[in-house]
């Protein structure tokens, strides 16, 4: 299921925050979206996940089923219920039978080391635990396109590693397409095989992740990577 973006524009008042000519995300790829603040990275994800709408242009996703697209945010909202019920919420929406739902949530909790937190109040968890629950919740219904908006910002390295491992696993085993906004270039290198570099709402460069990070073709990309690596 391919994601195609054509002449996508998003204006906030008089300010144009996104202006993309054409972008194609192939099925099963892991694409990092990098760029400075205000580049339009989050706006792009929000339009793809339909929590925002484009001023002009279109996003075409082959499945045409918006319920197969999901997004994990930097600061996820936890429902005021247990960890287990948070993970099961999307499955309840889809009327999964109780036993199947429990099996799926158990699987995810085990993979992400959340079994001991099953009955904990989700809104009382630490940042890392919250992010793992948000990821398990997003993966529960086996989405075909997973959007992540800086999911590991402000999270400890061990939890970050667990999340990255999970992302690689579901990509390999379930063929989930991943679009990943990150400021961490080392993380982009570890997780992704494709890369989009955005600046001021425009696509500057796209292609193989390793190649661009090692040898960017565009001056803007090179400057950004150099600056980021200095930090």
């Amino acid at each position, binding site marked *: 299921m391919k994601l195609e973006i054509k002449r996508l524009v998003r204006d906030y008042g008089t300010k144009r925050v996104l202006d993309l000519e054409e972008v194609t995300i192939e099925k099963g790829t892991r694409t990092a979206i990098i760029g400075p603040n205000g580049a339009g990275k989050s706006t792009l994800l929000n339009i793809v*996940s339909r*929590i925002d709408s484009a001023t002009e242009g279109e996003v075409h996703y082959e499945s045409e089923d918006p319920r197969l697209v999901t997004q994990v945010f930097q600061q996820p909202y936890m429902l005021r219920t247990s960890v287990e019920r948070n993970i099961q919420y999307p499955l309840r929406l889809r009327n999964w039978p109780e036993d199947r739902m429990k099996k799926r949530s158990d699987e995810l909790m085990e993979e992400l080391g959340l079994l001991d937190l099953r009955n904990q109040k989700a809104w009382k968890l630490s940042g890392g635990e919250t992010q793992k629950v948000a990821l398990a919740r997003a993966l529960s219904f086996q989405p075909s396109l997973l959007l992540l908006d800086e999911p590991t910002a402000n999270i400890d390295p061990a939890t970050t590693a667990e999340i990255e491992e999970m992302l690689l696993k579901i990509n390999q085993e379930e063929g989930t397409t991943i679009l990943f906004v990150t400021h961490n270039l080392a993380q982009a290198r570890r997780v992704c095989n494709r890369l989009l570099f955005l600046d001021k709402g425009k696509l500057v460069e796209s292609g193989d992740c390793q190649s661009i990070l090692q040898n960017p073709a565009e001056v803007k990309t090179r400057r950004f990577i150099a600056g980021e690596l200095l930090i």
Partner: protein
Amino acid sequence: MDVISAGIAQAFRLILSGDPEIYGIIGLSLFVSFSSVLISTCLGMPAGILLGTHSFRGKGVLLRIIYTFMSLPPVIAGLTVFLILMRRGPLGHLQLNYTPTAMIIAQICLVTPIIIGLTYNLVREKAPVVNRLGITLGAGRLEIMALMIREMRIGLTAAVVSGFGRAISEVGAVMIVGGNIKGKTRVMTTYITELKSMGDYSRAIAIGIVLLIIAFAINAILYNFQEREGK
């Protein structure tokens, strides 16, 4: 001081004696207040949610009017309802003045803006994140609305209790439209006013104590609910 202590002692005797007149008055007070709060909740909560989740022309003016009506003096609400319902008024043919129905209408005018205003503030703060989560997990419009109500249940309960507090304690509106008619429209607050003017302090104190007990009970229920849900 003797008058007060004797009044309190007599008040408890009166409450325990099962005086039918007093219990009739308490019953009518609760009926009028619960009815008005129920109707105000049905009107005010969806209105508050819609206001909090939609933008439209004139919203600012509408909100200012609602905030003004949140502190509407009960005598003005009572007078307005009385003028509308009086024989020569636009709804005079309904002959509702000096009935519990008129008292309920007057209290609806007082309580609905409170519930709208408090719901609006709650929704404005929380709706964007809940809405965003609902969309990305595949919830439809109705499912998102249900999710919002569930997630904001503590705040919404507090809004309803605030409305009830306003209804059960006000005297001006029910006095004007109800007329404090014995056995027909006499409620606790209007009765206290009359007893005070007659110098029957023990009965006035008895009714006052009942009012306080009701207020305490309602707030205790809310407190327990908040404690249970919030911990």
